[in-house]
């Protein structure tokens, strides 16, 4: 099966006064049609930077310095401004972190929907746009009458659902969810994820799901990629990540979430604090926090294999999830 999205050797730099910082370093991965890929990692590891590059939303000082992004035959990095405007939302759409605040507070919802349809040349007729929007609101379980309301009249969860409805307005092939539920309560978070899952089954799009909550990701995603300091250190089907993580970082991350079942065990988490991207050590980036570190790790940076859908970057990978 041909992958829907192919990312090759993507690198993103932030140019600062004191030199450039490489926030995403030589990242390659693929997403298959109808797959949910989860991107996990702690804050500042480059998860959102990847998502922004896929949509080409970066502005200086961020710069995509190397790599290729290919979505269903379109070379995303070669699109000109007009093509890019069409490409966004029609081929790929994104729900941002704290998306609740993405709605324009002084414009009624129906007009915000109308603008999507107008600028993508779907319809210029307000009545038709309203009918289409009503349809979309229904699929996210909001009464169509509420389209006449302003964003502040909705609760946080409803606003988030309205944003998801907007993201699906033009039936994109790939939906990027950047921490879509972080600001919400557990129950509301669950409702929204369930809705997204149902919609995915119905409309058959792929999802790139970004979060730091690994246990949520295991449940929701088919494949999980774990990032650390600008690199994807391990990528594998979620079952494999859950049962036999190979990278010590994945192992540590997995051990940072106490379970709801079974006995309460002492858990370690991960020692130390995240490494600064401007002071990367020679060799493996995880060396200072790793319990499995050897001399080799301090000299050479581990490389990923050829397979872009299942790989691990580590010199001393764990066997069958054991330390």
């Amino acid at each position, binding site marked *: 099966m041909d992958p829907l999205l192919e990312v090759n050797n993507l690198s993103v730099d932030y140019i600062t006064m004191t030199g450039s910082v490489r926030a995403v370093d030589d990242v390659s991965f693929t997403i298959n049609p109808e797959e949910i890929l989860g991107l996990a990692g*702690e*804050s500042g590891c480059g998860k959102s930077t990847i998502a922004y590059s896929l949509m080409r939303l970066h502005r200086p000082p961020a710069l995509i310095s190397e790599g290729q992004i290919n979505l269903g035959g379109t070379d995303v990095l070669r699109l000109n401004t007009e093509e890019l405007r069409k490409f966004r939302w029609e081929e790929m759409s994104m729900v941002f972190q704290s998306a609740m605040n993405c709605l324009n507070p002084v414009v009624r919802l129906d007009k915000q929907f109308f603008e999507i349809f107008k600028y993508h040349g779907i319809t210029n007729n307000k009545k038709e746009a309203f009918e289409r929007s009503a349809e979309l609101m229904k699929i996210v*379980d909001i009464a169509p009458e509420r389209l006449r309301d302003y964003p502040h009249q909705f*609760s946080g*969860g409803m606003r988030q659902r309205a944003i998801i409805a907007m993201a699906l307005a033009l039936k994109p092939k790939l939906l990027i969810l950047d921490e879509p539920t972080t600001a919400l*309560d*557990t*129950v*509301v*978070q*669950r*409702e929204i*994820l*369930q809705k997204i*899952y149902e919609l995915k089954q119905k409309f058959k799009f792929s999802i790139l799901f970004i979060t*730091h*909550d*690994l*246990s*949520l990701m*295991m*449940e*929701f995603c088919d494949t999980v990629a774990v990032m650390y300091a600008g690199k994807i250190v391990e990528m594998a089907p979620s079952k494999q990540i*859950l049962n036999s993580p190979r990278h010590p970082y994945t192992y*540590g*991350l*997995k*051990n*940072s*979430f*106490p*379970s*709801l*079942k079974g006995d*309460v065990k*002492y*858990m*370690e*988490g*991960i*020692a130390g*604090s*995240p490494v600064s991207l401007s002071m990367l050590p020679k060799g493996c980036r995880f060396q200072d926090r790793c319990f499995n570190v050897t001399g080799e790790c301090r000299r050479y940076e581990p490389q990923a294999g050829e397979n872009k859908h299942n790989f691990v970057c580590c010199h001393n990978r764990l066997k069958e999830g054991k330390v």
Partner: protein
Amino acid sequence: MSDKTSRTPIFEAKNIVMDFKVQKSGGMFAGTTTLRALNDVSFEMYEGESLAVVGESGCGKSTLCRIAMRVHSPTEGKMTYNGMDVHNFDHKKDYTKYREKVQMIFQDPFSSLNPLHSIDYILSRPLKLYHGMKKKKEIDEKVNEIMETVGLIPAVEQKRKYPHQLSGGQKQRAFIGKVFAIGADVIFADEPTSMLDVSIRLGVLNLLNKMKFENKKSFLYITHDIATARYFSERIIVLYCGHMVEWGDVNKVVIDPIHPYTQLLISAAPDPERETLAELKEKGRAEIQQWSPDSKGCPFAPRCLKATDICYKHFPEAVEVGEGRFVRCNHI
């Protein structure tokens, strides 16, 4: 649990009711209405134990902390620390004592430390103020000791830093160090880890756990993450809309929840071991509910699967279903 009931609690809340006057919707002159943020909340805290309070945003978790910190006085009921009424001290000295012994850890370590002072200053000041230490050497040694306890090593180097030079996890550790320096016995931790990176959350929680066991501190752990509540606490209170709906031993409540709201919370919590997406045990949408002194029935009824006519009319009383375990539901 039987021996636990015979122990004396270090901190106690009895039938706390908290009313707020809020503006009615409909303009400036619409008048005010009363919102009952907490209704009949009681709990005891013991030495070397942690009590978790879970619930969704707006359920009154933080109001509870604010009352204990004397930001608000409760409308009814009282809180006592070692037998002293927290909101009505006899002497000024008691109040000073209270401030020394009862402290709070905040959610956001980025704004809870004074950015103008070094960690050394932040930690040594309580030693001077509360413990009357005067010799520089003595203070230095104590600060180093605290820094090492909270895992900020090497202490000599780290204490010269200012808050902005530390990462989020280190800041929270420094703040915990401050609470430690003051010498608090009862600590109200309001979501102490939710602003931190996932990989260091557990480290901070383990530090609190160590303080709990080794220094016999007593914690009120406020969280919305039921899994860490189980990891860190002995007992749990599930709060819904200002009401305690289920409380008791944490393992029993999490493994075998009885109240429909607890069941809903647990079905919604992420669990990697789950094969398929979980079924939510809920009727209707989650809307934020408001409780007023004249509200009738069970607060959870509009969302409850088991709700019958009685739930809309009759306010459920707490029923003891096991040793020290209570549920507030009409269908027990």
